[in-house]
């Protein structure tokens, strides 16, 4: 009778221990896991070479995507510098990664301007532009708000845009999001983890 009672006690104790062990496993990502919460990488835009660019062109590569514009002298360059540093940290694995810089200012960011801009940061960045309607649809798809501010006296204007860096895997699935304040180390860490999981 006593033996039976001891075994009865052990069973829930064992279950509790197992549950506690599961909950103690820390999430592996340093960025935010968005698997299943954002649409796959899908677009038909114009590249900085002036040719059509589709998301399917990038299947088989990990993709880092950021919305910005070339007349932004501070935050956009800072973000692209971070992504360039990510590529440096990845070493040979950087060949498996592409960076997409999607312009929220298609009026000024023509393919030639985009090309000069992105190549000044890293050879693996592709600039993307399109019609205002195409850009608006792209931003909406990835829940990125942008606003073209009022023109100043000299004709210049600023554009506020989403600060999110999107990470897609080789099948075009949205996996992680970070932002312009995340360190290159954190982004590189998560990319390496994605590559090992594939």
């Amino acid at each position, binding site marked *: 009778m006593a033996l039976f009672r001891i075994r009865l006690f052990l069973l829930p104790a064992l279950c509790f221990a197992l549950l506690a062990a599961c909950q103690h496993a820390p999430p592996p990502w340093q960025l935010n896991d968005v698997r299943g919460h954002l649409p796959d990488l899908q677009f038909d835009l114009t590249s900085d070479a002036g040719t059509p660019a589709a998301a399917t062109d990038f299947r088989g590569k990990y993709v880092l995507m950021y919305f910005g514009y070339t007349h932004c002298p501070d935050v956009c360059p800072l973000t692209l*510098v971070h992504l360039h540093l990510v590529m440096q940290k990845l070493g040979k694995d950087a060949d498996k990664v592409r960076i997409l810089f999607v312009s929220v200012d298609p009026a000024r960011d023509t393919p030639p301007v985009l090309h000069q801009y992105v190549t000044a940061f890293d050879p693996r960045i592709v600039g993307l532009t399109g019609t205002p309607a195409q850009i608006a649809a792209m931003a909406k798809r990835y829940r990125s708000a942008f606003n073209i501010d009022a023109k100043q006296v000299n004709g210049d204007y600023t554009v506020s845009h989403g*600060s999110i860096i999107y990470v897609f895997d080789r099948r075009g699935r949205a996996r992680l999001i970070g932002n312009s304040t995340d360190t290159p180390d954190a982004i590189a860490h998560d990319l390496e983890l994605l590559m090992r999981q594939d």
Partner: protein
Amino acid sequence: MVRLVLKLAAVATFAICAAAAAAPVSSLKAEQGWVRWLPANLPAAGYVAIRNNGDKPVKLAGAESADYGMAMLHRSMQKNGSDSMEMVDAIAIPAHGGVALAPGGYHLMLMDAKHPIKPGDTVRISLHFDDGETLQLALPVRPANSSGD
């Protein structure tokens, strides 16, 4: 002869003291400045750390450059998942404190280059403060993908 030398020494000492009294040492100092070059005549960004060693707070009230048609004080911000930038009229610098114009925050926006500018060049910038002081800077131009270190 000795009296002449003594008289000259007195005059010289008085002159040096007078000169020192007339030209106070500036309480403002600029360090570690640089300009991020961007291609295609795009606006460039200027960065610098400013120290105020004085007993009173001052404000950086404006900037101009001999090499650009326009220099403005700007501030980048990240709010609610959005990156944006706005012009600021002045940047306050506390007494015995400092402010950093650095990537992601305050910066100079440099527009309309008066001549071709490229990495390796030096850009001249004048910073104007509300106490009437001006700091003259000669900042190195660095490539677009510079980390600024």
